């Protein structure tokens, strides 16, 4: 197996179950196929918060979407973020058959970002346990009285009891008899969880961690401690460059004036109202205060359509966010330019076409509008146009 950036393709698939976030994927039901030239094929099946990763020998079957990488370097590089996925897609080194949206939206949501393993982190469970008392935060544990047992199997593992009482914390070798909760797991899983390379949630859900006793107490323990920082990793870690993510939002009151006021009034009555340039006769849809060409005010309104002829059509595959709702649009959809009946020949109207009519849509085709059941005089009144048979 070829290694790039200290990682092999197999590493990425092997860590997938550990990086999986079941909570985020509880509504998902999808199979994704991966092909990496020279390395092999994998099928990842995600169903209601469970995940199955299998290497496939023959053809990838039953996958809603398949991702094809031209070579291991591309696959590993884009997974690690060392190569821009957009660039790889652009040049065809990475190819997605099916829904490209998955890459941008679903995968980052349901997986913890893969990070190349530190050359065998030298930290073992014992080291982490030994820092527990210094990481203890009495302010968070006021009034808490509990004993948490850890039974960690494997190299660097052992059995410990953490006693929290009266705002104090102590660690004892061995497991006490009256434990509030006992957690049993492989030592490496514990280390991974503490370092943040394994999702705790997935480790619990996938059964790698066994709990005996008060589950709520187990969940609460992390609050009583500062995060463990790997002292060895610190030196080699890239310097931290601070980013903040914010959504800037400003509520607005948009005036329609008469031009748009008439337009929405028309929609309410299931009518397309355009205003007419008194000089050149252009029917403006949507209406404007003025005819830009003639620079004269347009006060007269006429009804256009409702049927019309397609003058140009765009099928949109790119899933862009809808700025009105923030939701990602479902693709593909069509944006059509329609010359409504009665309109002047230089003014087409732009709108969506019915999804089912996409394959049959062409320039010159006749279309008719489909309205919402109840029209309110807003932009949701008009649903789409459909082919006029």
């Amino acid at each position, binding site marked *: 197996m070829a290694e790039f950036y200290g990682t092999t393709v197999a590493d990425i698939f092997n860590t997938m179950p550990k990086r999986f976030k079941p909570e985020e994927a509880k509504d998902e039901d999808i199979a994704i196929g991966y092909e990496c030239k020279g390395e092999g094929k994998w099928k990842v099946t995600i169903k209601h918060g469970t995940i199955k990763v299998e290497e496939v020998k023959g053809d990838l079957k039953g996958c809603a979407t398949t991702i094809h990488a031209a070579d291991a370097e591309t696959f590993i590089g884009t997974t690690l973020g060392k190569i821009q996925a957009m660039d790889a897609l652009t040049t065809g080194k990475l190819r997605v058959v099916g829904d490209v949206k998955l890459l941008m939206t679903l995968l980052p949501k349901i997986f913890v970002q893969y990070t190349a393993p530190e050359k065998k982190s030298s930290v073992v469970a014992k080291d982490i346990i030994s820092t527990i008392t210094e990481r203890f935060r009495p302010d968070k544990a006021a009034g808490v009285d509990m004993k948490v047992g850890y039974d960690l199997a494997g190299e660097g593992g052992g059995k410990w009891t953490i006693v929290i009482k009266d705002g104090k914390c102590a660690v004892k070798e061995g497991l006490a008899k009256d434990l509030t909760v006992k957690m049993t797991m492989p030592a490496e899983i514990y280390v991974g969880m503490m370092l943040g390379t394994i999702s705790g949630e997935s480790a619990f859900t996938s059964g790698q961690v066994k709990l005996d006793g008060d589950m709520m107490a187990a969940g609460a323990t992390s609050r009583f401690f500062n995060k463990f920082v790997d002292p060895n990793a610190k030196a080699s870690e890239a310097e931290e460059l601070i980013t903040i993510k914010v959504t800037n939002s400003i509520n607005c009151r948009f005036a329609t004036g008469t031009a748009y006021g008439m337009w929405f009034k028309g929609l309410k009555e299931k009518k397309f109202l355009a205003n007419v340039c008194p000089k050149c006769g252009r029917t403006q849809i949507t209406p404007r205060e003025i005819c830009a060409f003639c620079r004269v005010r347009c006060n007269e309104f006429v009804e256009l359509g409702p049927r019309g002829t397609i003058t140009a059509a*765009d099928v949109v*595959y790119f899933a*862009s966010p809808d700025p009105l709702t923030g939701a990602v649009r479902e693709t593909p959809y069509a944006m059509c330019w329609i010359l409504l009946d009665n309109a002047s020949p230089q003014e087409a109207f732009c709108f969506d076409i019915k999804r089912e009519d996409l394959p049959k849509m062409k320039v010159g085709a006749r279309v008719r509008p489909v309205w919402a059941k109840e029209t309110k005089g807003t932009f949701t009144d008009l649903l789409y146009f459909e082919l006029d048979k």
Partner: protein
Amino acid sequence: MKKQSAKPAKAHKKNRNVGIVGIGMTSLSSHKEDQNQPEMIHEAVRAALADAKMTLDDIDCIVHGNMELFEMQYQPDMWHVLGSGAYGKDEYRITTGGTVGATLVCAADNLVASGLYDTVLAIGFEKLQEGNTTGGITNMADPLWFRNIQTGALTGTTAAMMIDEFGAERAKKAAMKYRILMDKHAMLNERAHRRFGLEYDQAEDLMKTSPQLVGELRLIHMCSQSDGACAMIFTHEKKAKKVSKTPVWIRDHITVHREENMSNLYAFEKPEMTHHYAARKLFERNGIKDPVKYFDVFEMYDPSAWWGLDWSREFLQLKGDEHLRMLEDGEFDLDGKLPLNPSGGVIASNPIGATAMLRPAFAALQIRGDAGGCQIKKPVRHALASGFGGTLWTVLMMLEKDLDW
């Protein structure tokens, strides 16, 4: 009421000539986590000052511009004074959408030519990584209607119209050849952002495999999203000749806008395209009869391969399939009749607020002979540079090596 004079205004003439004496740009990339906005701007400012062998003390005035809603920074020049060098100086902030970089060059030209300022520093920049580009562009549309329909600047209509006009095979091939030519140029330009190393024999494959965005507009055809800044220094003739061995002169420029409503671009009767109108008027008033022959290089704002190819016909006042033939015959290559975007164009690098300034910047470097790996071999004396923005807005300018027009 007075009566407006019916006789035509005098032919275009400048109060004084203006030369470009300094050009600076940051690296162009999709990642600039290590710099905040003023720091990125300052990198370009320093580079331009170094190029002009000047200090900020030599600058009288700063012109600053970008698209505010990409970074969502209100009146950004206030914060950016930390990097722009505007402290204690005159400063203007003039914007026009995608064209803004070119508008800043026009503004700097006007400000120096007017005699109000002797030396002006213009700065165009964008940190697209800090915003949502497609969402930002979509917010251009009227909130009352078109915002629910628009998909940023993505459109496949030009591809469809070209396929209609020239047949699917020839049109798709030409668009892909254009795209690969731009990448070949970008490979020669060490400053370009995206450099893939595409070969012509990949064309067939890319035509099929590159993901479709809108219609036949595929991901490979589309421009990049970059972070970066460009700064240029302008001064009057006397000083330009003193401080620079190779000042590049701004001969003339024209800005043409059109209405917000795009309905009449896609109906059956279409108006003259703004690019065509701008070029026609500019060439007319400067006595340019054959632009392909006159100009030695054209740096065009080409947001996508389809648009770039289609627009070459409009700007160069070509007819029928002349532009396709020029491309097919290698006339847009570096050793062709009219080298097109030796820099790799906007497809290779696109920090939006700087993009339209990079066009005259790269064109001026060609005139100076400082374009590095992408330098055109034959002497470059006359350059054309364009900007694009808004609803098909255009800015077109002419740069010259000699003051001999």
